[in-house]
């Protein structure tokens, strides 16, 4: 029904899209996969005619014999929302915060069908029911801030499908959501395609999501579709080398040697952390127990708001505890100045955001040397910085550069170098690879495994993603609502979960079918 033919787009001389061709058939799901910057989102915006100002796409986007790239702006206004709907990645910001959800859904109907407010709201009610926001619990008068991320994404879907468009474009619709919420949104999208007979263009970086959803898949790299076809065929054959790389990187787990039994390094006993909020108290940590031995990797998994980041903060001595104790090397960890510097220097951290982890106004040498604040800066600190850079696979000459000159993967290497520079015993990795593309992620995981073997480091690896933890952890802990609900070796926790929450997490985890591998 919608056909892209040789869609091309350039910024200056830099090609962004290079003759992209796709067929989007009614009642079928097409997965568009690729890493960041591959042109997936630009393809979607080009179809919608919503490219950033100054950009013009070449080629053809055919809808019922009409080339949308040549359509006038008023014509595109009649097509958007009526013939093609679109939803975006960030449900938290995708809705107007000052408008009720009923009015936002009704707006599409009033705009295109000229309905009165009353009629439009009745229809909006019916559409919200359809996307799983039933009347009694979700009145039309709710505002976006009264809904969770998943619920907001449902509102966005209701708006996009309000007029039963022939094509729905979903750009990373579940990337910002928890895995259980993701599974429910994906189920909803699947059911909508089946019931309403529309075409779905599903844009994602996650091969496993595509494997479970799409009838056909197109793999994009550097603005080009390098391989496309029925999902099963593409995944089984992997005829293009890039597809093969993506495939192996997404299931990557580094080779790690056997770990000898060792005494405990970090002990968390009955840790309790309460927050006072306007709506009342919140117990973020509820008698949490956790041990990390020397040289051990412990994975901590849970959904957003389960308390895993709070746990990281109290372990690092950034926030105080309201009960229980945390010991590192037999000494008590405390918040602020009460913790001796020598003890603080025994642990370091790597955070998620490779872009926010470094002061943009400092040079690399000063950035990496910052932890020397704990130990006193040694006279040979420049050599130490150079050695740390070399150790994480960067050029010692990078020491005088600024952080914006590095890619996301390089920044995460720098963050690891900064953590290593004072030779800590424990490194807390808080979603340290979550923001990275799969191939870069595999390289960083390799680096972490090698450094652990070389220095006998202990890792506390915090993540929302069970599949990542599986590859790097000796032991996995599952956290829910401030409590550890399950603990064990990764194979056991993931392949034979005992607690109902773990079972739900595992069931929701998108996987590539075993016989495709």
């Amino acid at each position, binding site marked *: 029904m919608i056909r892209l033919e040789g869609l091309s787009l350039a910024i200056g001389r830099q090609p962004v899209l290079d003759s992209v061709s796709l067929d989007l058939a009614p009642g079928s799901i097409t997965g568009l996969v690729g890493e960041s910057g591959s042109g997936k989102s630009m393809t979607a915006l080009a179809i*919608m005619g*919503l490219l950033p100002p100054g950009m013009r796409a070449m080629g053809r986007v055919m809808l019922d014999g009409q080339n949308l790239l040549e359509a006038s*702006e*008023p014509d595109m*206004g*009649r*097509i*958007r*929302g*009526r013939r093609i*709907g*679109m939803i*975006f990645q*960030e449900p938290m*910001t*995708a*809705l*107007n*915060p*000052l*408008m009720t959800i009923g009015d936002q859904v009704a*707006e*599409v109907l009033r*705009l*295109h069908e000229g309905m009165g407010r009353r009629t439009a709201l009745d229809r909006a009610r019916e559409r919200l029911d359809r996307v799983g926001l039933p009347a009694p619990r979700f009145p039309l008068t709710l*505002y976006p*801030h009264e809904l969770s991320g998943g619920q907001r994404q449902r509102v*966005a879907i209701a*708006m*996009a499908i309000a007029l039963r468009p022939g094509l729905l474009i979903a750009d990373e619709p579940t990337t910002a959501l928890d895995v259980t919420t993701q599974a429910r949104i994906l189920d909803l999208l699947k059911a909508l395609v089946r019931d309403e007979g529309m075409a779905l263009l599903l844009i994602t970086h996650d091969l496993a999501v595509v494997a479970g959803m799409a009838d056909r898949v197109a793999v994009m790299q550097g603005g080009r579709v390098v391989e496309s076809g029925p999902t099963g065929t593409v995944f089984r054959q992997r005829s293009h080398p890039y597809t093969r790389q993506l495939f192996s990187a997404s299931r990557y787990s580094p080779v790690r040697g056997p770990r000898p039994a060792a005494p405990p390094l970090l002990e968390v006993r009955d840790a309790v952390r309460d927050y006072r909020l*306007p709506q009342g108290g919140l117990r973020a940590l509820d008698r949490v127990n956790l041990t990390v031995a020397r040289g051990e990797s412990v994975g901590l998994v849970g959904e957003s708001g389960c308390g895993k980041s709070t746990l990281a903060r109290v372990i690092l001595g950034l926030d105080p505890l309201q009960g229980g104790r945390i010991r590192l090397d037999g000494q008590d960890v405390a918040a602020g100045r009460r913790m001796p510097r020598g003890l603080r220097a025994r642990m370091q951290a790597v955070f998620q955001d490779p872009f926010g982890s470094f002061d943009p106004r400092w040079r690399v040498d000063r950035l990496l040397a910052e932890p020397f604040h704990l130990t006193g800066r040694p006279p040979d600190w420049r050599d130490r910085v150079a050695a740390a850079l070399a150790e994480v696979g960067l050029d010692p000459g990078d020491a005088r550069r600024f952080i914006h000159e590095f890619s996301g993967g390089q920044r995460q290497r720098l963050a690891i170098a900064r953590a290593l520079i004072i030779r800590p015993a424990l490194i807390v990795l808080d979603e340290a690879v979550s923001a990275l593309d799969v191939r870069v992620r595999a390289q960083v995981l390799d680096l972490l495994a090698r450094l652990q073997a070389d220095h006998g480091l202990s890792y506390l690896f915090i993540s929302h993603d069970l599949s990542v933890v599986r590859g790097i952890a000796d032991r996995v802990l599952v956290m829910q609502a401030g409590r550890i609900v399950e603990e064990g070796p990764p194979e056991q926790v993931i392949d034979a979960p005992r607690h109902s929450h773990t079972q739900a997490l595992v069931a929701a985890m998108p996987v590539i079918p075993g016989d495709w591998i």
Partner: protein
Amino acid sequence: MLRYVLRQMIVMGSSLLAASALIFSVVELVPGDPASFMLGTGAQPETLAALRQQIGLDQPLALRYAAWLGAILHGDFGTSFTYKTPIAGMIAERLQVSLPLALMALALAIALALPVGLYAAARRDRAGDGLAMGTTHLGIALPNFWFAMLLVLVFAVRLRWLPAGGFPGWSDPLAALTSLILPATALALPQAAILARVLRSALVETMGQDYIRTARAKGLTAGQALRRHALRNALIPVLTILGMQFSFLLAGAIIIENVFYLPGLGRMIFQAITQRDLIVVQSAVLVLVAAVIAVTFLVDLAYGAVDPRLRRA
């Protein structure tokens, strides 16, 4: 919403209390004491003692503050030292000029800024935007009292369309309003320039938000998205500026009254300063500050009306 309003009222009440204490204590800082300051060096000892007694200087500071505040709450601002008349009446009379002037200027500023800001945001980075923003740059740089002098020169002296100054009183409403046109214009124009710039940048900022992209994906044109989604969201920063502007307008009105010889609060204050009438100065300043605090309260209420996220808290 009720809880939100109550909380804002408590904030306003405590601000008023703190402001009154501040004003009261600053006046206590005069060299010597307020009575000898007001009477000057050549005062008779008996007169001085009498004045001290009248303003209660023989009592402790806290007690005097409490008495002063208590009287004000009953509408009694004391008696002018110079004119021997109740200050409350003087202020009420002067406010009949200053308040309409400030409100007229505010209305005029909004009426000018709204279309200019919307227009510039809609034509962002094009010639129309550049022209509009260049003009506002000039408007911001205008000292309002100088602009007022130029207005008098052109519209009163040369063209003789409008009076050059003076105020005929509200017994003739039309004449009264006519005499406020030039002062209000002089006050409003620089403020309109500021408001238009703030509105434009707030609109441009909101036009970059995700929900505008969502609105475009629904089929709204850029203009529809601007009017239906961006404008209301942009109103929040604009309200902040609007609240601050009222205090500038009130202060500006005091200066502008001098250009047009308007018998407003400003003229009264300057006369009181020359006459060393501290009681009048103190009361007038309190009224001005109370007006600013009250406007802040109204702006906070407006926030609550615009933004549902605030009503809950």
